[in-house]
């Protein structure tokens, strides 16, 4: 039961919830039951079927409706006299500015992506409003408290860098199933059904100069009157047969690797059989185009089954045909979507055929979908527990009970008898570029990189600014906003295409740029350092930013890894164009002896359209220090702890 002081703090509080998903539903319910009377809730999402197993405020009949609005209606049924204000909107909308945030006593995050988390963190810092942050994946979860000047901000700790794969691993030397998925989804699928103008590394770079690139391009063009059957076979033979032969011709590559096996359609499915399948397609053509499925037209039912090479090849051909016969209008504009059954079928089949070729174990459609869609594992219980912990911290924040703030980890396996492990919050990181004023350093080739590269790769992607303004001394180089006049817009657009040293005034080694986001009220300085060369594979951005939350050296330590199930480990390595990630999780500490260890478990961040990737499981070690308080007084032999009551 809450004490009188707690109750009065709760009753008088105005809280903002960001996110009405897995954690959000649980949180809204627990806030309402606990006596909160004025709750605002922002969520841009609409309800999907796969939400219903845990987002218990929603029903089948709500699919397609606003999460924030439906959640409000559901809670008012059992607590009709409280005020819940829903916003079916993106928290990054300019309406939710610093003044908007200032009206709240505390902000509670139940978000699913790094981008929005960083944005809310900055607004909370700017508005001086405490933030309770949370995340879950499977049975793991965490709750942290961020109060400006008192505890670290959300960005004080390095966030693991998104996983990317070297291009050649994907195009030529895959060794894991995820490499095949990336190839099938980001290269082959895009080549066949997506934007034809997009740069695409699908074709193996041939050492043989005689095969002109024009010829190679033609392999994917369907001839004017070409039979769809024949086209499918041609594509199949080109990517799984010819391209592999081409790659094999480069002996150097295979010195220390298993040689892949070229696969041709005629060896997998006899030609008569293909024709029979062709007839099946015709019979399936009459259905509803939104539910087109190669699996169902071939009579395969269970998504958990492992298909043989032959089945995969049949699905490949069938799915390709169905795209051309039933969804021809979309071809050229398709993006992979994990909820697009036919796309998932095509990608699964293509990835499996490639996997066979490279001697990599095959996977079921269910598994492939998880990897390709970066699907996060989510259960109701963890979200309920985390929501309870958020409310407990929120009440402490409202009472300004600083000494009792805790970050709490929900663990799958007990650590020193604990399943729920509270830890004292850390001090703010003095060199955090978000909550302190530490300058950043950018190594860049000022004669080659354009302002556009700097804006896209650094300011937006790494610093997470959405409405940036870039200044060189008192000169404005770049600005975004609705209130710009035509000349300004034209001027900035022109600047974007100029190399840094060609800007008025030129940006060169030694220049200090000021980058600012007016909405987030975040401002930082970047010292520019000119550098001539960058390693294409290791430094694909062609520039290096330092002094920000760069992940420290990673130490992979078997002992620190939490077994998070086999499916998680594969999913945690997937790259993806777009992901639906429910509730993510950043760091789990595991303490043994004097060291504090962090584990990043399947941390997943959805950076919408950009080619962002899910994060590989990493373990990092940080020396125990006196700021860290051990919570169990059992290990009294440990000198670097102090007891906590």
């Amino acid at each position: 039961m809450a004490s009188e002081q707690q109750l009065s703090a709760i009753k008088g509080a105005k809280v903002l919830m960001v996110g009405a998903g897995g954690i959000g539903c649980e949180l809204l319910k627990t806030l309402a039951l606990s006596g909160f009377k004025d709750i605002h809730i922002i969520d841009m999402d609409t309800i999907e079927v796969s939400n219903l197993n845990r987002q218990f405020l929603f029903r089948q009949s709500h699919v397609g409706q606003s999460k924030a609005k439906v959640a409000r209606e559901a809670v008012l049924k059992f607590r009709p006299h409280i005020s819940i204000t829903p916003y079916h909107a993106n928290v990054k909308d300019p309406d939710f500015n610093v003044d908007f945030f200032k009206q709240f006593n505390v902000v509670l995050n139940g978000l699913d992506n790094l981008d929005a988390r960083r944005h809310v963190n900055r607004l909370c810092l700017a508005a001086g409003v405490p933030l309770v942050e949370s995340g879950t994946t499977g049975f793991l979860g965490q709750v942290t408290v961020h109060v400006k000047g008192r505890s670290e901000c959300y960005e004080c700790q390095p966030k693991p860098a998104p996983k990317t794969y070297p291009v050649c691993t994907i195009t030529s030397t895959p060794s894991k199933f995820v490499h095949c998925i990336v190839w099938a989804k980001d290269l082959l699928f895009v080549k066949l059904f997506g934007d034809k103008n997009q740069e695409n590394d699908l074709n193996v770079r041939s050492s043989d100069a005689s095969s002109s690139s024009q010829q190679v391009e033609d392999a994917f063009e369907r001839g004017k009157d070409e039979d769809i059957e024949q086209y499918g076979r041609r594509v199949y033979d080109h990517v799984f047969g010819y391209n592999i032969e081409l790659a094999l011709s480069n002996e150097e590559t295979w010195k220390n690797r298993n040689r892949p096996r070229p696969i041709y359609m005629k060896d997998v499915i006899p030609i008569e059989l293909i024709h029979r399948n062709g007839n099946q397609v015709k019979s399936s053509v009459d259905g509803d185009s939104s539910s087109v499925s190669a699996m169902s037209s071939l009579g395969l039912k269970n998504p958990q089954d492992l298909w043989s090479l032959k089945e995969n090849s049949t699905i490949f051909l069938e799915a390709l045909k169905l795209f051309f016969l039933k969804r021809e209008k979309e071809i050229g504009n398709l993006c992979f979507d994990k909820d697009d059954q036919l796309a998932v079928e095509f990608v699964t089949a293509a990835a499996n055929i490639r996997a066979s070729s490279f001697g990599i174990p095959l996977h079921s459609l269910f598994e492939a979908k998880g990897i390709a869609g970066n699907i996060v594992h989510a259960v109701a219980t963890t979200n309920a527990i985390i929501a309870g912990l958020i409310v407990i911290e929120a009440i402490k924040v409202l009472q300004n009970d600083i000494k009792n703030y805790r970050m709490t980890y929900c663990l799958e396996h007990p650590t020193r008898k604990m399943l729920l492990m509270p830890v004292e919050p850390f001090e703010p990181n003095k060199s955090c570029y978000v909550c302190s004023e530490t300058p950043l350093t950018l190594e860049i080739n000022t004669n080659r990189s354009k302002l556009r590269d700097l804006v896209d790769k650094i300011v937006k992607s790494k610093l997470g600014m959405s409405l940036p303004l870039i200044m060189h001394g008192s000169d404005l180089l770049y600005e975004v906003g609705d209130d710009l006049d035509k000349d300004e817009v034209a001027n900035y657009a022109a600047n974007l295409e100029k190399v840094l040293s060609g800007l008025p005034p030129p940006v060169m080694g030694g220049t200090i740029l000021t980058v600012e986001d007016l909405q987030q009220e975040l401002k930082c300085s970047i010292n520019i350092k000119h550098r001539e060369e960058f390693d294409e594979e290791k430094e694909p951005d062609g520039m290096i930013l330092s002094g920000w939350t760069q992940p420290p050296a990673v130490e992979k330590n078997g002992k620190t890894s939490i077994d998070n199930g086999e499916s998680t480990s594969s999913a945690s390595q997937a790259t993806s164009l777009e992901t639906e990630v429910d509730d993510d999780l950043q760091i789990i500490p595991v303490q043994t002896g004097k060291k504090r260890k962090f584990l990043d478990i399947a941390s997943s961040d959805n950076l919408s359209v950009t080619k962002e990737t899910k994060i590989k499981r990493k373990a990092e070690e940080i020396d125990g220090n006196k700021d860290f308080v051990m919570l169990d007084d059992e290990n009294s032999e440990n000198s670097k702890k102090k007891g906590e009551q």
Partner: protein
Amino acid sequence: MDGEELTEQETALYDRQIRVWGADAQRRLSKSHILISGLKGTVIEFCKNIVLAGVGSVTLNDDRIVTEELLSANFLIPSDENVYSGKTLAELCCDSLKDFNPMVRVSVEKGGSCFHNLLCRELSNFHVDFFNKFDAVVISSCSLLTKKTVNEMCRKLLKRTAFYTVDCRDSCGEIFVDLQNYIYSKKKGDETVECLLEYPSFEEAVSVPWRSLPRRVSKLYLAMRVIEKFEELEGRIPGETSAADLLNVQKLRKELCDTHSVDESQIPDALLERLLEGTREFPPVCAIVGGILGQEVIKAISGKGDPLKNFFFFDATDGKGIIEDIHKQKAEG
């Protein structure tokens, strides 16, 4: 299991959780039957969790008439007196739980729990055969005697029926688990090894002499035993205590501590006072303890994951969620 496949509808609805515990576990869940008695806030949270998880059936037992206090941490019942007039707590909860997941059968079993009749032996009035239908039995707001009796009945059944008790007071919660002899497979590196856990019954666990409890055992464990004993001696309805009882409870504490030769400081006054006074539930603690309980029942039914053995304690004031393994030492026979 039994080669039966999940339907397309199930695969779509349970997609995210199948990715956590696998299709086999989901199939086992969908064939399981759970009995739940005593529907206060923590148990309501638990009901929501397992109905969402997709168990086969849930049987609710609580004949109490709805009061404002019973609804303080209940989100299943609409705040409209017209809706709940004349219906029992279980009947009202049943209606809205059905709505959560149409694939789960939710029903009400009347009788057994006469919470307001002190002479009634509550749930233990049910015949042993009644419990035979269930894979897991969860009881709450029960007397010490009921806990022992129902636990013993579960142990007499031919098949293994998991037994749980859960209680929340103030901002504290306690879960007890009895899985009898539980065998499960566990991943160790690349290998799968079989593990056997031997659970004591509730009676066996609570009669372990305090001197032989694990070192630094949770103070909550001891405090809950004192209060449980107090309620039994006084013939109280479980949970119906107040600060006025402190003096008598302190006396009982002294007796028990003397018997067990442990220091009284192991059970601080402040803690006893909180537990006696805080009979109204604290919703965040209900969510946390109901969440842990849900997870444990799912683990036991699905055979996936290490189940906790055999007590769990949560106290919001320090934020720790602790597992205690309390059983008779083998050496002592």
